[in-house]
């Protein structure tokens, strides 16, 4: 599903080249549950952005869903994100003036998949995550864990092939964080591919595969 070959990424500050990723080789197959671990500045977020089609590599080859990503236009990438990837972020990024239900429905607006009865599906997802009573609440009326579950429902509304979570527990207490990780575990059990990016070593045990990034290269890749 994901094939990265010798991926390099550099930022330029004036004349100076600042290499972030220094040749990443990685394959992730359908159905995996990967924890991508690294300290701040290791390049894990940049790697996630490239995998999530939000950023482009400077060098190397990336194939996602058997499609070479190099040279695709922004519009095409947006469509692919909408169709194949569900994103979950540390800060949830729910729109404050929309209800939980309306937030979950946002990707539908841009979707070319014909999802039948999207509202019903959104309600069903929120119900599954224990938010049946909260669907008409605004984010400000929800706890952090509830907000993150709304965000996960939003990530799932379009039936993505991949769930990509960036520090999903970073803004939560450890108990709630564990609940969220259990949720990812459950989704993986249902057959979804999940990648969780984190700096928190305590999360390592939740995944089936651990990839550690250090200074722009993969320093460890272990599967249970």
């Amino acid at each position, binding site marked *: 599903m994901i094939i990265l070959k010798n991926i390099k990424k550099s930022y330029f500050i004036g004349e100076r080249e600042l290499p972030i990723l220094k040749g990443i080789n990685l394959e992730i197959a359908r159905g995996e549950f990967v924890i991508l671990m690294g300290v701040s500045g290791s390049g894990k977020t940049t790697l996630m952005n490239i995998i*999530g089609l*939000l950023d482009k590599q400077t060098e190397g080859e990336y194939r996602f869903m058997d499609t070479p990503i190099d040279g695709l236009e922004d*519009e095409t990438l947006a469509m692919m994100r909408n169709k194949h990837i569900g994103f979950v972020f540390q800060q949830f990024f729910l729109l404050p*003036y*929309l209800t939980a239900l309306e937030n979950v429905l*946002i990707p539908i607006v841009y979707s070319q998949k014909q999802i039948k009865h999207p509202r019903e599906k959104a309600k069903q997802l929120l119900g599954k995550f224990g938010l049946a009573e909260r669907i008409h609440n605004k984010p400000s009326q929800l706890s952090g864990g509830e907000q993150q579950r709304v965000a996960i429902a939003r990530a799932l509304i379009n039936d993505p092939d991949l769930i990509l979570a960036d520090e999903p527990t970073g803004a939560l207490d450890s108990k709630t964080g564990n609940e969220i990780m259990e949720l990812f575990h459950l989704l993986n059990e249902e057959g979804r591919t999940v990648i969780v990016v984190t700096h928190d070593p305590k999360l390592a045990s939740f995944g089936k595969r651990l990839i550690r990034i250090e200074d722009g290269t993969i320093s460890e890749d272990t599967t249970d």
Partner: protein
Amino acid sequence: MIYSLKFYFKIALQNLLIHKARMTLAILGILFAVMSLVAFGNISNGMKKKIDDEINRFGKNLIILRSGLVFASRGGTKQFSESKSLKLEDAKKIRELLPGIQESVPFFDITYPARYQEKTVTVSIVGTSDSIFRIRNINLLMGRYFSRDEDQKTEKKAVVGYKVFDNLFELENPLGKYILIYRVPTEVIGVMEEKGTDFAGQDQDLQVYIPLNTLMRRYSNVDYIKGIYLQAYDGIPLSQMKISLRNFVRTIHNLKDEQKDDFTIFTMEDVVRTQEEGIRLVSILTVIASTVSFLIGGLGIFAIMLLSISERKMEIGIRRVVGSKKRDIIFQFLTESVVVALIGGFCGICIGFIITMIVNFIGGFPLVASRNVPFSLVVSILIGMIAGIYPAFQGTKYEPIEVLQ
């Protein structure tokens, strides 16, 4: 597409509700512009309708030729000099020889008391031909008009105005009764509907119409007439008709170049022209005022949209992440600025109509909705779009990985 449009409308409205004070400021310019356009358009339509109604009630395509020099205005007619030069044949010549005239009705009018039993009322006695009833749209409350035959035979028949009937007869049936005019008993054969005061200030309900030949030969014993009502064919500009009529009458009266006219020509339009010029002047001022308001409104929306977009970087970022294309972002924010402008437009229309109702009530004008209503809505939409384009494009400059860190 329909789904997303609905969605964007909802988002726009929700954002408006969050920032009530700010949005109120943003819509004010559009609101004032639309309000003034709508109120002015409706009111001037109502005034024009009222004037048109007056012209129609007076008689359509009507030109009045009066003997002597007369000044006609809303306050009444003033006679400057009299003349006995206008003859009955003149009316006939005009009808037969002057192109464009379909009807020519001579008249002789004089103020005189009319009596019935012990009651007297001063009336304007108008001797004229039977065609007058048609060209001046005179309808009867009861009885009948006099006929051409009765005019030829100089019969003493009278069609009286409403106030004449009301003052002399009260509840009595006037038909077949005789009133005294010039001490001559004259049979009442018809009563006119109430018509009010005509544009020249004459109370039309205090008129008594009798056959012209009867008046000239049996009552006043004159060989001249006081004037002619002329009706032009539809589609001929009355201003042109007046010029050819003047030349024609000067010719048949053998007036030399240095001699002044011995007649006056006027139309209802002359009298109402000053009013219409007033309306036109106000309309120019309204257009200027509403253009300025629209510009201010557009700038307001522009500023508010820029502010709104810079506040909503996160929203733009997350939308882009979940698959929104740049053009979706543009579309969303354009919808928002158009909705803001449209709300201003709708409020403006409502307030404009309230103002119209008040002015119509005071001025007694009928309600005629102006084309300015749809026009100002279209302009509002355009202003919303133009004001929203630049901010919407600014919104596409935020890249998700930059704004979501």
